[in-house]
């Protein structure tokens, strides 16, 4: 029986005997995974407090099973269930537009590193053979549109972040992953950062020794207003994360150099950065 609190590793392979179940509470989401002889069942619900930072899990759990009507339920039917279930924290299934709490101005020639966090999804798989059972967000972010007009662009998720400049001020939440974004202003003007689109589907999840989750470091070079920004997704998390180990690969084939519209200025339809 495994129990943990704080920033422990709630993911990975968990052994469950027949008719046993595991219980996880990660941030605002609480979920149970139950094993029967012929099926796996995943039941989950989201609490009202979107900023909850609770982390507790037990597998197998010795508490009471949830009632069938609680939350949302998925079932996986099999001829015979194996004894291991795998949980993997994965990146969101769409790009995420990060809105810093306050507008940030970066003069020409300057560079800085922003630490932003994005919500995680949980992938639940059976082991031997590996089969995807269900995938769900630990915190369902709002939808948003990123593009010059409502006719052109891309549907993304939106999240607000403090966008810390000092890594020591970063608050790590178990349901979010942190990305270090290095922004270099090579244009002739001061740039204003109101929102930033991260191509999280091209990024991986890494775990530091203390259980905190990071992605690869990202570098954005801004050359001129209205120009597409060169974005480079690194191969490893930043050095400040310390030694890390890969937890989940990218959803899409990794593309190291992406020419993307990464920045948004004032108002939809503006190409200014």
């Amino acid at each position: 029986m495994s129990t943990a609190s704080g920033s422990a590793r709630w993911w990975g392979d968990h052994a469950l005997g027949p008719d046993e179940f595991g219980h996880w509470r990660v941030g605002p989401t609480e979920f149970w995974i139950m094993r029967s002889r012929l099926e796996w069942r995943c039941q989950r619900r989201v609490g009202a407090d979107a900023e909850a930072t609770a982390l507790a899990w037990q597998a197998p759990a010795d508490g009471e099973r949830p009632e069938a009507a609680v939350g949302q339920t998925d079932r996986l039917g099999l001829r015979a269930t194996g004894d291991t279930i795998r949980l993997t924290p994965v990146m969101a299934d769409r790009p995420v537009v990060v809105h810093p709490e306050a507008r940030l101005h970066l003069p020409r020639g300057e560079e800085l590193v922003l630490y932003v966090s994005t919500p995680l999804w949980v992938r639940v798989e059976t082991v031997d053979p590996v089969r995807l059972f269900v995938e769900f967000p630990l915190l369902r972010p709002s939808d948003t549109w990123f593009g010059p007009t409502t006719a052109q662009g891309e549907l993304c998720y939106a999240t607000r972040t403090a966008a810390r400049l000092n890594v020591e001020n970063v608050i790590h939440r178990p349901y979010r992953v942190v990305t270090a974004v290095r922004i270099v202003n090579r244009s002739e003007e001061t740039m204003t950062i109101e929102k930033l689109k991260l191509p999280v589907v091209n990024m991986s999840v890494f775990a530091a020794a203390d259980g905190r989750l990071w992605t690869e470091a990202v570098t954005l070079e801004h050359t001129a207003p209205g120009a597409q920004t060169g974005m480079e997704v690194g191969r490893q998390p930043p050095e400040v994360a310390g030694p890390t180990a890969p937890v989940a690969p990218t959803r899409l084939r990794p593309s190291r150099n992406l020419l993307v519209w990464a920045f948004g200025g004032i108002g939809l339809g503006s190409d200014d950065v």
Partner: protein
Amino acid sequence: MNRMQEIAAKVGLSGGQFAGVVAALVILVAGWIAARLLAGAVARALRGHSTDQTVMLVRKLVFYSLLSLVVMAALNQAGLRLGVLLGAAGVLTVALGFASQTSASNLVSGLFLIVEQPFVVGDVVRIEDMTGTVLSVDLLSVKLRTFDNLYVRMPNETIIKSKVTNLTHYPVRRFDLQVGVAYHTDLAQARAVLLEVAERNPLCLINPEPQVFLQGFGESALDLQLSAWTARENWVKLRNDLVIEVKLALDEAGIEIPFPHRTLYAGAQTAPMPVRIVDGPEAPPQG
């Protein structure tokens, strides 16, 4: 062979003619099957590389082209001289031309629709008073399936002359909710409540951001409009959820959505009219 000659004699044909007719039928049946198979194969090959509409058009083009060749080959095999037929067709064309003006107009309109592509198969469109999903764009008409599962055939000529609204052309769409609040309501508070409802709903886009407009000073209420954007596939769900969420939020904030009402004044210089409230089926005194 003797059996065939007997049958030929019964229908009044010579042996050679009967063989020709039989061969023509065989060509027709085999050709029809071959045309269906080939058209289906071409459609399967295109699926995934083209839109549903293009696949449908190519399939029909392949099928009818092959079928035309098969019919001509069958007629030729049956002994009919195509030259005579084509000559007669020329005479008929003039007569048919006068009779088929509407069909010709639909045909030409259909070609324009195919080229202009105001909508494609799968789009949800509103044409006149009809709203539905486009099932096919054919040469003479467009077929729609309404939301209550009715099959509607809309002539192309009608569509070309009508205003067509494509509800799913763009990936995001705005939903406008009209809400009337009582005149004594704090408008800033009402606005904040409505915007918070939109922000709490994850289907409501953060950008473009939701907005609240004061539409005007209505007869019984201040007319507000909450405008929220969402992905087109979520529009119906947002529309249903937002109405309920707004009502709950306004109730919780103590903001009244007034019924239509009238205030009666007898005049500035007169006393207010007395009103007696009768509780129960008590009839007022007569006279």
